């Protein structure tokens, strides 16, 4: 029995309907994403709080507006995804409220990797979708669809000034593995191979970052 109760065409038509319904949320999400990335380049007082609030907003939006209110129409499993995305959003919200963590771009391997992930989510992912024939509005948009949001999240966690707690990357990793492999293997959504790859590489880099001596981390501040 096919594992998915829907076809790629229906999946993309859901995006068509979703994108039409939520417009101009996509433009707002792009603006917020660029602001979060700017805050890693020009750290400001309270910048970490703002960036985590943006990540929280992305994940809560995806959990409620995308999974629960739209994807659940065609996929019963979306109810579980909605719970996980909302939980991830709540985790980011708690850290935003705590206000102790900051983002800072450092011109080293981890810093450039984080920047690459973020730019990929903002620019390259939609370009890959377009090349694969998934024209707007039948496409996953940054910040309001799970795939680019997960890639962007890995990028931002790599841009954290300190080591990122791995629990913050567990749900993005699980989503990347499950959704990425299903989208590629069962639906033929080629651009989502980047989600699968991004999840594995992103999580691996976060683990590697945690293994760096804290003195080096401190020296690079």
């Amino acid at each position, binding site marked *: *029995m096919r594992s998915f*109760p829907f*076809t790629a065409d*229906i999946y993309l*038509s859901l995006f068509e309907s979703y994108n039409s319904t939520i417009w101009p949320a996509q433009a707002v999400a792009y603006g917020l994403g660029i602001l979060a990335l700017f805050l890693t380049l020009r750290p400001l007082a309270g910048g970490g709080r703002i960036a985590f609030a943006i990540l929280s907003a992305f994940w809560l939006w995806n959990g409620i507006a995308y999974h629960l209110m739209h994807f659940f*129409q065609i*996929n019963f499993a979306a109810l579980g995804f909605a719970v996980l995305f909302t939980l991830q959003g709540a985790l980011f919200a708690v850290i935003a409220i705590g206000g102790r963590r900051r983002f800072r771009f450092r011109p080293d391997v981890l810093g450039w990797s984080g920047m690459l992930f973020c730019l990929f989510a903002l620019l390259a992912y939609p370009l890959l979708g377009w090349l694969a024939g998934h024209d707007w509005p039948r496409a996953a948009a940054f910040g309001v669809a799970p795939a680019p949001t997960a890639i962007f999240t890995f990028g931002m966690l790599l841009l954290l000034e300190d080591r990122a707690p791995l629990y913050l990357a567990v749900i993005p990793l699980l989503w990347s593995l499950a959704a990425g492999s299903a989208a590629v293997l069962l639906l033929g959504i080629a651009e989502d191979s980047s989600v699968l790859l991004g999840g594995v590489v992103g999580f691996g880099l976060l683990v590697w970052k945690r293994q760096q001596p804290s003195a080096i981390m401190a020296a690079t501040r």
Partner: protein
Amino acid sequence: MGHLTRRTFVGSVASLATTATLPALGQSVAPGAILKKAIPSTAEQIPAIGLGTWITFNVGSNEKLRVARAQVMQTFFDRGGRLIDSSPMYGSSEAVIGYGLARIGNKGALFSAGKVWTPLKPLGINQMENSRRLWGVERFDLMQIHNLLDWSTHIETLKAMKAQGRVRYIGITTSQGWRHGDLERIMRSEPIDFVAFSYNVVDREVEERLLPLAAERGIAVIVNRPFQEGVLIDRMMHHPLPPWAVEIDCTNWAQFLLKFIISHPAVTCAIPATRRVDHMEENMGAMRGRQPDTRMRARMTRYVETV
């Protein structure tokens, strides 16, 4: 088999009637008529081709696609169809069926076959009520336990619903071959009217035990995955229809594959799924004309195995 009850007696008589009325090679369903099969527990006749909705009817709220599926349903009813099968597992399929039923004519003959697919009794009751609301029907003709999920709980609910007249028939389904042992035990122990499992010209394991058991116990059989979810028919489309297919009035592969299934005496109804009106017309054509007999069925099997 245990002692003879009214149920098994009626079932046996109905099965014999079905077998007896199965046209032999060269014989035909009367011109303009369609092949109907008896539900053993009541002898009620239903058309041998139904409509499955797995994947194909899960189109969300897309208005254009919902209208297209309503056209498929209209064609189904226009060609004599009755049984439509769905499940809460199929995403928006139930809502899309309800959308279609509310907009098309000639639907009075609907035989609604829903499913319960959740653990726990209260969740099951709520789910069945939600399904009924989505379909927009007063009651389901048939309510089935989907993939045996928490079947021992739901079977008691379904028996009570049937006793109260809130559903006409009850049944149990699986599309998973590894559950056939459990299914067989349920068929032997529970008073179900219907059972549903997969069967087609290449997946014939059920011919050994489940189909004979259904006939013995007087249980109607719904066949799911008649085309292996499209894999089988896609494979056959690369090969020519054998010239002798005209002997059973087949003009396309869909009819060839479906006639093989519905000509089995123990099969009551096959439920191919489609999103296209032309495919629906092909499917419904399987109920017309001459049907294969035992010798022809063996020939069909050999042919498919060689291509």
